[in-house]
């Protein structure tokens, strides 16, 4: 019995990787040209900012909250990056640090006033968008050269997006899943009462997690303008949904504490590749969102099936 339990659990944590492998195989089958350094580089480039945004979302989901403002926040970072960070680096860095601070304060507000995070973050999404439009009223600006250089880095043998994804996933995995304070942070989402009774500050945990979400939101925005070379307030509107879908695909659950950084990154890659796959298949754009949703439901259904086996 113990054995079966273990197997189901392993299967469940392997599911994100499995779905990614199946999707990759399908893509290589329909478009053999994609099976190359150049092809993977092109297809996965935009997965890097999405993976970072997904990790930001995952931090918030860890403490049993949901962030509906990450998309516009990434857009704001992109606008600051394409204007102040390029023209006046010191001021730009200061503004980005301020953004992260605001994110941490948002976590404090949600905790202290006991507000539903969905409402607070939804409200903040308009604030981020508003500031972004003020910073950059019409699309444009210029990304700093070092960001462009970093994102178009040519690594030998393995395409840069894959290297970046692996590094990001492993660093966050080590910090959140294998450090002692990481356990406390996850506990703050899974069983806040127990963690608080053990003497840990819940306020601090929430602020750290929201602050980390802010940090990864900033990284996401900066990597995004490294790719697009210019900014736009609406550049990342879709990221809110992508990040939630990616985190869930990657094994996170809305009960707090149950997350997987490696899974989240794999989920983001899967979502990005799903888009490519649908274009290669020539699915009409009217159906693409539906088809992406179908892939999501398929993976979740599989997970539910495995979880049922686990419970037994």
């Amino acid at each position, binding site marked *: 019995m113990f054995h079966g339990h273990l197997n189901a659990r392993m299967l469940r944590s392997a599911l994100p990787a499995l779905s990614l492998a199946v999707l990759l195989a399908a893509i290589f089958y329909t478009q053999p040209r994609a099976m190359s350094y150049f092809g993977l580089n092109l297809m996965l*480039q*935009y997965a890097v900012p999405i993976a970072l945004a997904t990790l930001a979302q995952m931090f918030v989901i860890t403490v049993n909250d949901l962030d509906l403002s990450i998309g516009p926040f990434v857009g704001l970072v992109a606008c600051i990056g394409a204007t102040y960070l390029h023209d006046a680096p010191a001021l730009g860095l200061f503004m980005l640090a301020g953004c992260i601070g605001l994110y941490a304060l948002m976590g404090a507000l949600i905790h202290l006033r006991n507000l539903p995070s969905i409402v607070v973050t939804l409200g903040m999404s308009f604030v981020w968008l508003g500031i972004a439009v003020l910073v950059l009223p019409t*699309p444009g600006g210029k990304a700093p050269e070092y960001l462009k250089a970093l994102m178009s880095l040519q690594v030998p043998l393995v395409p840069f997006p894959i290297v970046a994804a692996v590094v990001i996933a492993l660093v966050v995995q080590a910090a959140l899943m294998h450090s002692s304070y990481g356990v406390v942070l996850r506990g703050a989402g899974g069983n806040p009462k127990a963690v608080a009774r053990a003497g840990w500050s819940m306020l601090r945990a929430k602020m750290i997690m929201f602050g980390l979400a802010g940090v990864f939101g900033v990284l996401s925005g900066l990597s995004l303008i490294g790719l697009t070379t*210019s900014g736009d307030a609406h550049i990342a509107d879709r990221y809110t949904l992508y990040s939630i879908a990616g985190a869930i695909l990657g094994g996170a659950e809305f009960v707090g504490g149950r997350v997987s950084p490696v899974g989240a990154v794999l989920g983001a890659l899967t979502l990005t590749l799903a888009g490519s796959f649908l274009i290669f298949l020539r699915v009409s754009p009217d159906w693409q969102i539906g088809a992406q949703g179908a892939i999501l439901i398929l993976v979740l259904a599989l997970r539910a099936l495995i979880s049922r086996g686990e419970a037994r």
Partner: protein
Amino acid sequence: MQFKKTLISCAAMAMVLGTGVFAAGTIDIQSASADTSAKKIALSNNYAGNSWRQAMLKSWEKVTGQAVSDGIVAEASAFTTSENQVTEQAAQIQNLILQGYDAIVVNAASPDALNGAVKQACDAGIVVVSFDGIVTEPCAWRIAVDFKQMGAIQLDYLAGRIPDGGNLLEIRGLAGVFVDDEIHAGIEEGVAKHSQFKIVGSVHGDWAQEVAQKAVAGILPSLPEVKAVVTQGGDGYGAAQAFKAAGRPTPLIIMGNRQDELAWWKEQKDANGYETMSVSIAPGVSTLAFWVAQQILDGQEVPKDLVVPFLQINQADLETSLETTEKGGVANVEYSLDDAKAVIAGE
């Protein structure tokens, strides 16, 4: 094209005016089929949610379908992103690169933010032609609209019709959008040139008849006699309704090629000999971009910046234009290879 329409290219205006009528010709296969018959061209489109974009896609399908069956190109597929999002279109362009297209024709969601993906396409040896929503990446071709000229010619027309001048009402588009600023600048320029005209009122009609009607109705009581209304398209019919409701004489209203506007114009023409003109961009500009891409693949020397002709309907063309315009649609014209060559040469 069975009907004749006056296409005025801003750049080639003198030439076109000289020849008078510029009818779409037949496709000249001999000069182009040799080198591009194996080439694949893709359309990357960011939005399909209004009548103009729908007409644009339909024109693309019609003209490129014919070109494919004539063996001029091997393939010309259209791809539209499901939401008007920069990141989505960038990913779409990258996928098109992977699919091995020789040329990508782009109606871009953003002038700057696609530059990264466009550059990658260029680096992969792909010809990128942007139109309507153009991209600023230097390696791409641009088929831009001279919106300023679209405003200026309205005043030129009015100066011919009402030599004594008078008061004008200006209906603008969506505030804060680049197109609105450009057309407005052209109108201002025209007023400076023909100083007998004076703009006595200006409202935002958002390129929508209902909005325009409400806005005009709101400002009318405060206005003196209005001789003419300068517009941006999609607002002429609403303006006419507002004047009628206020019981004021109908001024000379410039139309914007929408079917409801043309229908109203025809009604007035039959009733009292009403005369005006109508100007806008033909959605078929996508087919011009297609031929330009084909010409570049063919090895022709094409300047990086081209100016798209806009579609002007005069009194004499009204009936034929109205007949060929779908209800609720926009007057359209599809371009032939010869038209594209003329535009390329016009630079």
